[in-house]
C-alpha cells in the first residue's frame, strides 16, 4: 500500500500548466502500472474528516496530529517485495511536483509469519 502524504495544500501552488503536466505524468504512471498488472486500486481521500478518540460514552473529535501532513490518497499495488514497492513509489510524479510530498510504503499483511496463518483476502 502506498500512502500519499502531503503537507497542507501542496497542489494549489502549481500553475495550470504544471497541474496539467503533473496529471499527464500521473496518467503515464498509472497506465504503466496497469499494463504490468501491478495496480489493484487507487483513490484520493477527502482532506477533511473526523478524528475519533476517547472511549465509549466519552468520544470526542480530535485531537488531530499537530503536523500539517495528511494522507491525501493511496495506491494499492502488487509488488513481489519491498524493494519493488519502493521503486514503484519513487516513480510517483508527486515527488517532482509537490513540495514536501512523502509516500509511505506499507506491505499489507497476508501471512502471519509466526503461525503461517493466511489472512482471507478482503475482496
Amino acid at each position, binding site marked *: 500500500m502506498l500512502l500519499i502524504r502531503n503537507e497542507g495544500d501542496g497542489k494549489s501552488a502549481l*500553475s495550470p*500548466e504544471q*497541474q*496539467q503536466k503533473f496529471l*499527464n505524468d500521473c496518467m503515464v504512471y498509472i497506465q504503466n502500472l496497469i499494463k504490468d498488472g501491478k495496480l489493484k486500486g487507487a483513490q484520493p481521500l477527502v482532506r477533511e474528516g473526523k478524528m475519533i478518540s476517547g472511549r465509549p460514552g466519552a468520544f470526542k473529535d480530535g485531537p488531530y496530529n499537530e503536523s500539517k501532513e495528511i494522507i491525501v*490518497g493511496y495506491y494499492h499495488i502488487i509488488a513481489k517485495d519491498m524493494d519493488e514497492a519502493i521503486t514503484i513509489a519513487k516513480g510517483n510524479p508527486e515527488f517532482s511536483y509537490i513540495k514536501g510530498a512523502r509516500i509511505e510504503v506499507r506491505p499489507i499483511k497476508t501471512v502471519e509469519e509466526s503461525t503461517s496463518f493466511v489472512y482471507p483476502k478482503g475482496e
Partner: protein
Amino acid sequence: MLVDHFFRHESGKMVSVLTKIFGSQNVDLAEDVVQDSLIEAMEYWQYHDVPDNPSAWLFRVAKNKALNIIHREKYKRQYSNEAAYLLSSGEQSEPADPFSEREIQDDQLRMIFTCCHPSISADSQVALSLKTLCGFSIPEIARAFLTTETNINKRLVRARQMIRDEKIPFEVPKGKDLELRIQAVLETIYLLFNEAYSATKGNDVIRFELCQEAIRLAQMLENENTIKQKGDIFALLSLMFLNTSRFRARQDQEGNLLTMGEQNRLLWDRKLQASGFEYLQKATENTVTGTYYILAAISANYCLAPDYNSTNWENILTLYDCLVEMDHSPVVLLNRAIVLSKITGAQKGLLELERIKNEPQIRTYHLFHSTQAEFFIELGEFEMAISSLIVAAKWAPLESIRVLLKKKISYCKEKISCDSSF
C-alpha cells in the same frame, strides 16, 4: 492524455462563465472557484484515468462549487441576476444553460472587453487578461515579464478594484461603442504580444506561449459575428503571425538578440508565415490602412526577402512614410532612419537622428545610441561611435546587451589603433 494547455484554456473559459454568474465585481471569487475546481479534478484524476469528457467534468465541479458559494454567501455579496437564475434552475439544464458551448464563447468575449476596459491601466489589463482569460499563474506572468510576483499581484488587485469602483459591466459593447472598444482591446493584445516578443531574457518557452495566447485572443474577436469591421483584427493577426514566425531565429545560443541581418532565415517558421500572409490578404480586402496593417506589411517585406541584402528597402521606406503620418513617435522615426540609411547611406541616417535626439524618450533609449554608433562605424568614425556606445551601455536595460555593446567598443578601439599604426 489531455490536449495541450487544457487546464489553462479551460480555466479561462470557466472564469469567464463564473464571472457572468457572480458578476464582474466578483471576478476574484470566480478565479478562486476555478482554481479549486482544477485542483479537485487533478486530485481525482491523479488516481484514475482522465474521464472521456474532462471539460464537462470540470464544469460540473465548478457549477456545484458556485452553487454552494451562492447559497452560503447569499446575503454577503451582491451577485448578478444570473446567479439567481442559476440558483432557481438548479440542476436541470435549461434552454439558456450558462454552461453551453455558445454561452461559454460569448462569456469569454465579454471577459475580453471587461479586462481591456480603458479605465484599467495598460499593464493591469495585460496582467488581468493573462490571469483570467489565458489561465496563467502569477509566477508565470512575473517570469515572462521579468518582474516580481508582488508586482503582478498589485496590478491584478488594482484591476479588480477598478472593475468594482467603476462598475465595469460584464458585456460586449454595442453599436458605435463597439468600434472604439475594439481598438482598445487590440491595443492590449498588441501590448501583450510585444512585451512577450521583445523581451530578451526570461523564460523563452513561456514567452512563445504568450505570443500564441495573444493570437488566440485576437482570433476570438475574429470569430465573433457581431463584429462587422474586422480589418484591423486581420491586420493585427497578420503582424503577430509574421513576427512570431521569426521567434526562434531572433536569438543566438546564448540568448543574445540578433538583428534581422544576422538571423538564420532557415529557422523562420514558414507555416506561421503563411498564416500571416493570409491575414494580410484578408486585411487588404477590407481596405484597412491602420497602424497594424502597415506594421504587418513591413514585416511581410522582411519575410519575403530571401536574404538580408535583397530586402526591398524602397518598399519598406514607403511604408514607414505612411506610418510616420499616423504615428509621429520618435521610435518610429528612429526605425525609419535605419531604413533610410540602407538606401541613401549612413550620413543621411545620422541627419535623421539629429532631428529626434532631444526627445525625452529617445535620450534614454539605448537603441537610439547604438543605432547612431552603427552609422558612425559605417562611416569609419570610430571615436564618435565609441562615445555613442558608451551612452547606449549606460541606458541598456539588460546585462546581455551591455556585454554586446562592450564588445563593439573594443572592436572600435582596435580599429583606431590599427589606423594610428600606419
